[in-house]
């Protein structure tokens, strides 16, 4: 067998379209999922056992089910409740849902890592919880959030390949189309793997830039306790 990239010449536009959609879906799911993740983290930190239990269930359920099953539950669940959306939107929502559980753990751990006195001194002077979060907590945890969030975003981008199974025309779906037309699996998947690898590299680079921009946090702010570190490194591991 020989390797002949020329076979793909007619199919580059298709693959690039797929790559573009993969990128779009990932960015949309990042924004949506992060917003949901912050909300879940704040619920988890609300005093009282009930909010903590609810948030805990949310996180544990989503983290222990394969993404492909979450995808199908959403895919069949939305019409079941009378909601009809295009497949790409369904896929984005499912991806955001999946990622939100991990983002929630990242945000929660970062908040817990901040000394309690920071939030308390803001509350004691009369700031509302929202203001204390916004003016005092958020700016201090931003930097600690970047590395684990990047990791999770990379994982999520890779999981988006699964959207091909509900016919979202992203990169993996297009690669199967091209494979069906060319019967040149080696060339097709070498190309597709390289594109994924480039997208991953682009996300990592974007994260490095972001980290540099929020890098101005003072030394004292990053002091954190060991328990929180354990959570942080847990989510930074693999998902």
């Amino acid at each position, binding site marked *: 067998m020989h390797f002949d990239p020329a076979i793909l010449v007619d199919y580059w536009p298709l693959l690039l379209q797929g790559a573009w959609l993969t990128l779009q879906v990932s960015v949309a799911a990042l924004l949506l999922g992060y917003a949901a993740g912050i909300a879940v983290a704040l619920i988890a930190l609300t005093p009282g056992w009930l909010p903590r239990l609810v948030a805990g269930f949310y996180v544990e359920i989503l983290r222990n089910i394969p993404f492909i099953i979450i995808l199908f539950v959403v895919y069949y669940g939305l019409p079941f409740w009378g909601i009809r959306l295009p497949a790409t939107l369904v896929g984005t929502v499912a991806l955001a849902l999946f990622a939100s559980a991990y983002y929630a753990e990242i945000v929660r751990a970062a908040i817990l890592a901040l000394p309690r*006195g920071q939030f308390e001194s803001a*509350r*004691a*002077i*009369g700031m509302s919880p929202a203001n204390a979060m916004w003016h*005092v907590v958020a700016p201090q945890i931003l930097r600690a959030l970047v590395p684990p969030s990047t990791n999770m975003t990379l994982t999520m981008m890779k999981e988006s390949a699964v959207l091909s199974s509900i016919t979202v025309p992203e990169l993996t779906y297009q690669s199967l189309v091209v494979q069906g037309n060319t019967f040149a699996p080696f060339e097709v998947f070498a190309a597709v793997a390289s594109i994924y690898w480039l997208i991953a590299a682009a996300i990592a680079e974007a994260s490095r830039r972001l980290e540099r921009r929020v890098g101005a*946090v003072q030394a004292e702010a990053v002091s954190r306790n060991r328990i929180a570190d354990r959570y942080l490194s847990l989510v930074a591991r693999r998902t």
Partner: protein
Amino acid sequence: MSAVPVLRVSNLTKRFHGVTTLDQVYLDVHAGQIVALIGPSGCGKSTLLRCLTWLEQPDDGFIEVAGKPLGRELMPGGVVRRHSRRQIDALRPQVGIVFQQFHLWPHMTALENVVRPQTVVLGRSRDEATRRGAELLMRLGLADRMDRHPHALSGGQKQRVAIARALAMDPALMLFDEPTSALDPELVGEVLAVLRTLADIGMTMLVVTHEIGFAASLADRIAFMDRGRILEEGPARDILAAPKEPRLQSFLDLVRTDHRIVRTTANPTE
């Protein structure tokens, strides 16, 4: 001495997991007074200050700041009405607290630490807040440190920023949790001087301290707390010269022989 005390604490009780930490505390602090709160480690001094800022919710009892109830109030007919979070937050600037570890916000400059709460909580304009913040920092001898971040300040300077942060809210009362303990012993005199300046402008203060000498040279009145109760309260001279409570006597004996009490000292009456 006006009729309405700046701080009135009555029957304040706080339990942690069934363990009573504050046991029916009564305390009045009148305008312009400096009250030192002394007592052995673990007797509940910090817990009392945290309850006075509602960082801990007391299980029972009432707090009044300048005549206004904080947290809950007794309505006619003996009904206790709990205040909403907003009501509590609205009264909080009235009680300035300086924590043992100061808890300055490390991502803001010294000046910004003082300015931000004014704009966020009191709705002051940035100009006005900056003017007020700069004036306070200047008066506390930090004119050339305003643009520094907390990590570039000494312990004593951090404390003065924390004081300015609380003062900028125009509080009726200032609370200090062991203002000398996080600083080098040489700085005790400096802290004393700062608190005296506050006294000169008529600030009312409740100061938790381990240092009897510090209490003696600063306070008008001294309250002695043990096992969550205030056992004796009165003019500083009388308390130090002629303590009535045996536990206060032995506490003073211990502290005087030691001078600086070790933080881990157990309840000396045991």
